[in-house]
């Protein structure tokens, strides 16, 4: 192991990691917002919007992220829409993640039985109040584990960003291998970088899940 190589290029990895995390976080937040919106459309069976959401979900879930990115980065300019690599990364991640998040939210919403809704309605609660006080708190304990899995899945998916020349972790590693042939060091640092990002998130989520399971009953 060439330690001086590792020492020399660590700052590059740190910079790339910051970029990966930044784009990942923005993309995931947008995916959560989009997912929640889609889940509510499906839950309340809103006409027209419901069909649009259904098409979007199939499109998003059944095409690879890299294809979606290529479409954004190489396809859209042909139609006169020019997006930066960063924008492509964020939009691509939100587009892919939105459908997965929607399914997680929906499974939570659907886990709250009809009779719970009817008892809440019978008490005179309005639709919004039923959602806020009865459905969401119960749905959360079902949704959070799936949501957590999605967050981790999406963070890992960011590794294809290099395909649209975004200088993320994968890009830096490939670059260094190409220039110096220090494959072992470059890949070890790559693995370490992803672990440093994702492991803490993973641990925080499992603690959260354990707490919610306790509070759930």
């Amino acid at each position, binding site marked *: 192991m060439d330690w001086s190589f590792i020492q020399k290029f660590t700052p590059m990895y740190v910079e790339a990691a910051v970029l990966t995390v930044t784009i990942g976080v923005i993309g995931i937040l947008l995916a959560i917002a989009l997912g929640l919106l889609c889940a509510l459309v499906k839950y309340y069976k809103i006409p027209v919007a419901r069909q649009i959401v259904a098409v979007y979900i199939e499109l998003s879930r059944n095409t690879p992220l890299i294809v979606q990115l290529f479409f954004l980065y190489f396809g859209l300019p042909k139609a006169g829409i020019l997006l930066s690599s960063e924008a492509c990364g964020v939009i691509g991640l939100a587009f892919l993640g939105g459908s997965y998040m929607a399914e997680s939210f929906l499974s939570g919403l659907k886990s709250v039985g009809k009779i719970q809704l009817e008892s*809440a309605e019978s008490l*005179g609660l309005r639709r919004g*109040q039923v959602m806020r006080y009865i459905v969401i708190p119960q749905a959360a304990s079902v949704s959070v584990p799936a949501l957590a899995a999605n967050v981790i899945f999406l963070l890992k998916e960011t590794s294809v960003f290099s395909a649209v020349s975004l200088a993320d972790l994968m890009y830096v590693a490939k670059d260094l291998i190409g220039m110096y042939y220090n494959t072992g060091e470059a890949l070890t640092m790559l693995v370490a970088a992803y672990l440093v990002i994702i492991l803490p998130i993973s641990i925080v989520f499992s603690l959260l899940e354990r707490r919610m399971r306790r509070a759930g009953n």
Partner: protein
Amino acid sequence: MTMTEQTEHIIEINHLVKRFGDNVILNDLTLNVSKGEVVVLIGPSGCGKSTLLRCLNGLEPIQGGSVTLHGEPVEHGKPSLYNVRQKIGMVFQSYDLFPHMTVLKNITLSPLKVQNRSKEEVTEKAMELLKRVGLEDKANSYPSELSGGQKQRVAIVRSLIMNPDIMLLDEITAALDPEMVHEVLNVVLGLADSGTTMMIVTHEMAFAEAVADRIIFLDGGVIVEEGAPAEFFHHPKTERAQRFLKTFTYSR
């Protein structure tokens, strides 16, 4: 005279028709419930008694006729339903407490959020009602820590605290063990004694006879027979009611 009688009705059901597809559940049903009256609906399963209660609370759309509470229409899906529902307490067979809230929160949620009453007043009232049903020590427990009978008593309190004009009880003991049936039905008898207007669906015939001012026997979506409990249970007039009541007695 007719005018005063009119105003005394809490609920008026006029020519109510309820269908699921081609299946007629309630067929041109007319019935009034007066203030302080306890009406017990009995009849074979599928006769439409639970559906009738659900229509009274606007949980089901109806296909004909009308339901009014103090003259205000109860209409499924209309915004006016929110106000009408506050005056109707409903308790279901499966209790349906909110599992993520303590007993006290279950009870106080609706008076706080729907009626905007003060927290002090609502908490005090909740404790008073819990005491009345013998559960004051369970205020901070979660529903999962309660027995079925205890849950059902909490569900009754949760409806009562809204000061409803009428309580609708839909087979509230059907899912309970026999000894729990007793504790829940005693609470209901207490409510009847204190003048609560109620409409009750039950299969507990001894209880029906004790609690009812009037028995309505439903079959095939129509009222087949109605009358005072003593008369209905001991001298049923219709052949259909006689046959139904026989299913509750055994001999060899």
